[in-house]
């Protein structure tokens, strides 16, 4: 009989935030991602160094320790290209520690777009180019092939599953959202409709969000959460099934939940307790798929993400500014690619990172849930302003390159 297992999947990402890039900089300087003020969270180096200290270094050390101590412990990671590039510059030791983790053979790298973009919804070609770039980077850095795919913000629909199936992935990750699951449990492997081989793993959002969002919330009835309690919940969740998919941001450990909340001790203790039961284990995402039969078919014709109570794309594409920004950005695709200018293409792609439009989200003004969102800008309008100026500058460089018209208002 196959053991009951936790699939722990952590997402590692840092965007390249746009500085206060004004109309006066446009067509003058192209350093959109180079905020000079070292005291603001628009400064990418500052953020990366800070999160490296608070999260990446201590958590990697803990993961390494757990891998060493428990032969059954396993974890899956997706690491974006924009994170890797920044770590190469400002925290190369963190990348080395990720390499050590992968070298154990018990840490799987999950595939995604290099730029953490929403390209799937705008351009299939550009999307595939970014998936390939990411696979190349993973090969080069870790010497492994990826076989399971996750799309930015865990955005998912049937079409994406069909694409991933045709592209050769054996698994894909999505949110286990109640209105879609209805009576079904997220703790099984499923099959997307109209596909041949691919399998679907669904996030157990209750147990995942207990750690990612609620762990340090003192108003939560279950605070402070102990490893014993969480073990009980996990065991209870899995009684008539075989998997618990815990999917969350890697930065949950140390950055979203600071070290002084006890998150690291909690996690170490929980892993030990879970593995004390000889019926329990951990799986990587591909192992979970290899070891379990699909329970049935699950269809998600509309896009589902792992964000907010709506679980849709409205945090990224919910208002006119966000839609305008991406419409204009992707409209440049053909001209940009034709230049073959690596720097220009790379800047254009860095602007595709979904965080930029997320910072333009205004929906929490009506939710009254401002604090659920993080942004390095004073307002979504500022975020939009600087982004549009950068986009205009990209147009300007494009015109310079092609030596004829192509600018737009």
């Amino acid at each position, binding site marked *: 009989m196959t053991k009951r297992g936790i699939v722990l999947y952590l997402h590692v990402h840092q965007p390249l935030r746009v500085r206060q890039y004004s109309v006066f900089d446009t067509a003058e300087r192209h350093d959109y991602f180079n905020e000079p003020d070292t005291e603001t969270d628009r400064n990418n180096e500052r953020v990366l160094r800070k999160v490296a200290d608070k999260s990446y270094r201590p958590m990697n050390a803990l993961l390494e320790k757990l891998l060493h101590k428990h032969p059954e412990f396993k974890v899956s990671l997706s690491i974006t290209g924009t994170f890797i590039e920044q770590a190469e510059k400002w925290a190369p030791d963190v990348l080395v520690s990720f390499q050590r983790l992968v070298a154990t053979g018990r840490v799987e790298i999950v595939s995604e777009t290099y730029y953490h973009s929403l390209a799937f919804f705008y351009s299939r070609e550009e999307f595939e180019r970014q998936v390939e770039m990411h696979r190349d980077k993973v090969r080069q850095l870790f010497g492994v092939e990826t076989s399971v795919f996750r799309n930015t913000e865990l955005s998912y629909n049937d079409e994406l599953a069909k694409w991933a199936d045709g592209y050769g992935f054996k698994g894909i990750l999505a949110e286990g959202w109640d209105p879609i699951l209805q009576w079904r449990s997220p703790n099984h492997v499923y099959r997307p409709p109209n596909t041949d081989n691919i399998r679907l793993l669904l996030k157990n959002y209750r147990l995942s969000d207990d750690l990612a969002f609620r762990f340090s919330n003192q108003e939560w009835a279950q605070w402070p959460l102990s490893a014993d309690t969480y073990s009980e919940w996990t065991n209870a969740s899995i009684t008539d099934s075989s998997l618990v998919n815990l999917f969350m941001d890697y930065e949950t450990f140390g950055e979203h939940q600071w070290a002084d909340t006890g998150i690291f001790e909690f996690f170490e203790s929980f892993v030990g307790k879970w593995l004390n039961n000889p019926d329990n284990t951990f799986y990587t995402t591909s192992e979970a798929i290899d070891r379990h039969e699909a329970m049935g078919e699950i269809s998600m014709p509309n896009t589902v993400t792992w964000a907010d109570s709506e679980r849709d794309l409205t945090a990224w594409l919910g208002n006119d500014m966000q839609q*305008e920004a991406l419409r204009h950005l992707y409209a440049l695709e053909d001209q940009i690619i034709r230049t073959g200018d690596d720097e220009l293409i790379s800047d254009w792609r860095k602007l595709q990172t979904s965080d930029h439009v997320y910072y333009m989200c205004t929906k929490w003004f009506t939710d009254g849930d401002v604090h659920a969102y993080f942004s390095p800008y004073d307002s979504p309008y500022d975020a939009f302003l600087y982004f549009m100026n950068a986009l205009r500058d990209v147009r*300007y460089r494009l015109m310079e390159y092609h030596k004829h018209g192509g600018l737009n208002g």
Partner: protein
Amino acid sequence: MNILMLGWELPPHNSGGLGVACYYMSKALALKGAKIDFVVPYQAHHPDARFMTIHAATKLGPLHRNGLMGSYDSKYLKQIGLNEADSVALTDMRGVQKRYVEFVEEMVKNNKPDAIHAHDWLTMEAGMRAKELTDAPLIVHVHATEFDRSGEAFGNPIVHEIEYQGLMMADRIIAVSNITKSIIIKKYGIPADKIEVVHNAIDVASMGEHSYDRRTYKYLESLKDEGYTVITTITRFTIQKGLTHFVRAAARACEKHHKLVFLLAGDGEQRDELMRLSAELGISDKVFFTGFVRGKQWRDAYNIADIFVMSSVSEPFGLTALEAAHHNAALIISRQSGVGEVLHSIFRYDFWDIDVLADQIVGIATSPALAHDLKANIKHEYARISWSDVAHQCMQMYSNMKSGVTV
């Protein structure tokens, strides 16, 4: 002729046109022999103002002239010599105005002016008190009423009340345009013959000779090279300025002619709304926001303009239109803006009529001949309006009243 001039700001510590107008008017009056004591509510250095004596009514810095609003620390208070009681008294605008009145009361005790000249509601109470104490004639100079500032809304009833009292108590009233004069008559019931219209002017010499290097707005310049027309407005983003109508007209104009870009220079509480509206109308890549601009960025916002639009819902005068004309822009000015009364080679429209504005923008953008004629002809018009003429009218008013009140 001793004039007690009551104002709220002077350059370079001004937030808008009021300070500029007060400065050049006083300068022109001084040249005609007036001895001016100018009271401001704050303490600061004013360069190039030796033609008059400036008095500070409080120890506050210029940024706090509308009250401390809690945005200070005890170190700042100590530094400028204020105690705890002062910090409470000077919390808000009304507190500062009260101190201003007390200061003027003290000032006129042994120094009776020949005329008191008070600018806008901010100083009207001090003007009335000075008149009461000295029996000198009071001139209330209206640059804007609360009806203008509140756009299409009603405004602050306390301010309305002060304006009403000041206008009633004044011996003479100066309005900066016929539009303002008619507001004073209609809204406050003041008899027409008590009001004189004296339009503002522009000091061309102060604009200076400068070379334009086409570098400040480089992206916009390259759009111009591609045949785009730049439509600029430089203003505070408040409801008074009618900018939502302007943005809607921009979208309408783009439907007919796509090579248009709109430069919104300035800042204000409506900025976010304007950005949201541009996105909603699908023209956000054609609308440029600069934030608050000074110096070269400010001047070049005029320099780059092919068309300057003043979209105000209610603008007593509108000095920026003259500045734009000086920088060679074609002008489109709402009928609700007073500056239109002194200019002829301009387009006018009702602030709410976005179709007309869109049509005028496209018309100028697509006809080089029309654009050229508007720019060339306006040059002859704005240059004729001088502060010296303004000062002449004021001097006559002071003299007439001097003889008039010794009954």
